[in-house]
């Protein structure tokens, strides 16, 4: 946080608003871990987007004769418990898992950031009440909230995303509020107020852009956590429902066949690991890049 302030001062001195971004991006590019992470994420996003073109079979095409077959030329990743091609399911599963990650976080952001801005900027009784509610939500174990919400809405991918999104929201409210509180007292904000800007303009034009950095870092890390959360909900039967594939539900089914057909578990397990690790590396890299003290 102090780092952003340092940048603020230098940029004001140079009279430009986007210098810190460019410098941060340059630092980011130099961090190899984050670049690897970014590359992997982009790769999987492309696969997910072009899934119908890339996958050799339809993900729900069953073949009674080829149940639980080991990897062969016809099925590079083998087949699953009712004869579906594992490779195609992993490819299409990327859609479900990536969406679970991104959409959940988008939901958290769209509720969490405005609430945090409101709470931090307005302060007073509203802030007090909101913070108590946020504290209460944070005090309930995240997964329990998610399970209860998912059970309430019904077990399917969309509801799992909503459940995860809502359960992860309090953290963003807190973060946004903390950032808003410290930015609120900055000189330029005071100046903007003195000039007579309407509150909404101050919040949207002066405060929000300057607090985006840590929120983005948190969001990237949250996507990683959300993908894991979807897999966890699938373990409990609350995520993506068959026959549609998601890496989490594939893992859940595969663990029953670990001895007879281990390939059913290798590929989705590896996919989750690689993608989540990449988002984590990317998020950590972003955090380092945005704080010059970390060199």
């Amino acid at each position, binding site marked *: 946080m102090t780092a952003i302030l340092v940048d603020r001062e230098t940029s004001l001195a140079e009279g430009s608003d986007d210098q810190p971004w460019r410098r941060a991006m340059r630092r980011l590019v130099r961090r*190899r*871990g984050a670049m690897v992470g970014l590359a992997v994420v982009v790769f999987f996003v492309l696969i997910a987007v072009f899934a119908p073109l890339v996958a050799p079979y339809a993900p729900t095409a069953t073949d009674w004769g080829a149940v639980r077959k080991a990897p062969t030329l016809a099925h590079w990743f083998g087949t699953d418990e009712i004869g579906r091609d594992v490779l195609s399911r992993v490819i299409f599963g990327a859609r479900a898992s990536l969406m679970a990650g991104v959409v959940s976080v988008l939901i958290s952001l769209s509720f969490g950031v405005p609430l945090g801005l409101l709470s931090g900027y307005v302060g007073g009784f509203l802030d007090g009440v909101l913070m*108590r*509610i946020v*504290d*209460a*939500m*944070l*005090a*309930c*174990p*995240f*997964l*329990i*909230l998610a*399970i*209860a*919400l998912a*059970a*309430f809405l*019904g077990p399917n991918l969309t509801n799992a995303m909503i459940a995860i999104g809502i359960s992860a929201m309090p953290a963003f409210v807190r973060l946004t509020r903390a950032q808003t509180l410290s930015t609120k007292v900055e000189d330029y904000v005071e100046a903007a107020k003195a000039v007579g800007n309407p509150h909404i303009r101050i919040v949207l034009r002066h405060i929000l852009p300057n607090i985006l950095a840590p929120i983005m870092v948190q969001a990237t890390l949250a996507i*990683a*956590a959300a993908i*894991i959360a979807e*897999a*966890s909900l699938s*373990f*409990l039967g609350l995520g993506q429902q068959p026959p549609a594939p998601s890496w*989490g539900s594939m*893992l*859940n089914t595969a*663990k029953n066949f*670990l001895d007879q057909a281990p390939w059913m*578990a290798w590929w989705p*397990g590896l996919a*989750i*690991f690689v993608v*989540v*690790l990449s988002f*984590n*590396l990317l998020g*950590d890299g972003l955090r380092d890049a945005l704080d010059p*003290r*970390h*060199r």
Partner: protein
Amino acid sequence: MLTYLIGRIAIIIPTLFFVSIIIFGLQQLLPGDPALALAGEERDPQVIQFLRHKYHLDEPLPVRYALWAQGVLHGDLGESIRINKPVLDLVLEKLPVTAELAGMAILVSLLIGIPSGVISAVKNGTVIDYGANVFALWGLSTPNFWLGFLFIMLFSVKLGILPASGFVPPSEDLGRNLATLVMPAFVLGNASAAVMMRHTRSAMLQVMSADYVRTARAKGLNERVVVLKHALRNALIPVVTLGALEFGTLLSGAVLTEQVFTIPGFGKLIVDAVFNRDYAVVQGVVLCTATAYILLNLFADIAYFLVNPRLRA
């Protein structure tokens, strides 16, 4: 300081109130009739009626909340519809189990996280930095039910050196108790290890560029002494207090870990209760864990305040 403390303690009440409203409300939203779900296969209408009446399920929501809240204030957390046992008894039975698991998990996360954080900070930017990063992040990047299951297959089935599931209280057999908790604690602590690593690393990086460290280096002290004796000690302050805050995340992770390793703790209790619509159990347990989490937060803040000389002045 005293006013700060009083203020913090006073806030606990409204927060807990909101916790109870949230969890009570969520439960009621759940579709499905608990009397029906718990009346048994035969779904005898008389039994369903009886259960509805006994557990006030036919009363309007505000009445039920009031009845429950009143009970809580008198130390009565209600009764499990499924096994006719008071929730308070269940909580007291399971609390030590999850506490032990969480404690061991935090130990694991510190044992993995702090060294990786230190190495990562000291060798910042090098391959070793990335290596330490990935090592600590590994736990965060795999669903813990999957990791747990793999461990069971490896250590219990293939190697036969650890029990696959279950729990033995330490009072009964300490050796077996630790044996049953090693794998779950590791699986659970793994994820927090990454958080510990991040905190340690960032704290270390901050500290290492501080003046007193530069002075120590200028004095010609061995690098390792500089790192361990001067930098780490100060970097640990925020890390250890942050460890207490990880408790909330640990509880969440415990839910699944206990399910996979069949550890009879809070996590398993809550999950089963949600699916069985055993309302009182969910409400009682969440209230207890929320209280524990809030108190831990308070202690962490106080500890941070006391330990950090700069804040005290």
